[in-house]
């Protein structure tokens, strides 16, 4: 499937774009995130990153389909 992925904060720099359309056989945020890491030769930071689906926090194992918009939030650094 093709899924739209939104990236925030420093993850935009890590993965090169604010938003991308990703072709994948994976169906959950964790596997898609790991695919992105592998593609960009980036370290797995899933212990610190929070996934969201359609602007709502979700589990790493939530099943996705093409209608979803997946997002990854790095640790907060406001204030």
């Amino acid at each position, binding site marked *: 499937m093709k899924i739209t992925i939104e990236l925030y*904060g*420093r993850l935009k720099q890590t993965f090169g774009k604010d938003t991308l359309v990703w072709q994948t056989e994976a169906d959950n945020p964790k596997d898609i995130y790991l695919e992105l890491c592998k593609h960009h030769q980036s370290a797995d930071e899933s212990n610190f990153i929070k996934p969201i689906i359609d*602007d709502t926090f979700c589990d790493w194992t939530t099943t996705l389909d093409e209608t979803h918009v997946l997002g990854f*939030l790095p640790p907060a*650094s406001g*204030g």
Partner: protein
Amino acid sequence: MFTLTEQKIDHNMLTEKVKNKRSGAFACFEGWVRNHNHGKSVTALHYEAHDKLAVEVGAQIVAQALKNFDINHAHCCHRVGALAVGDVAIWVGVSADHRGAAFAACEYILNQVKAEVPIWKNEYYENGESGWVEANHCC
């Protein structure tokens, strides 16, 4: 209540939101943009937020403070967009009957917002470089 704003933070207007006749104490924290970080000269900041989740998470933190502490009102406002050195980036205000609870709740809200609210800081340096700032929980 928790709000985001692209405008300069107006502390007089925000103070009015927590002012009430029951309270004898008002504690306030302002976070300002400083001109240095880790030995580099900072010229400006840009804050980015996931607006919907930032407001949701921020509101939950303020609501939790109202449950956890003996306070009357609380408000937190975080600036987003481009900020200059000296600008107020975050404002927290708490009113309470007495000062102890007001100070404690103010610090709780600040710490939780810094740790949990999806807002990210990009610093711009005098040498022309920029960089996303990692979470900073220094006091």
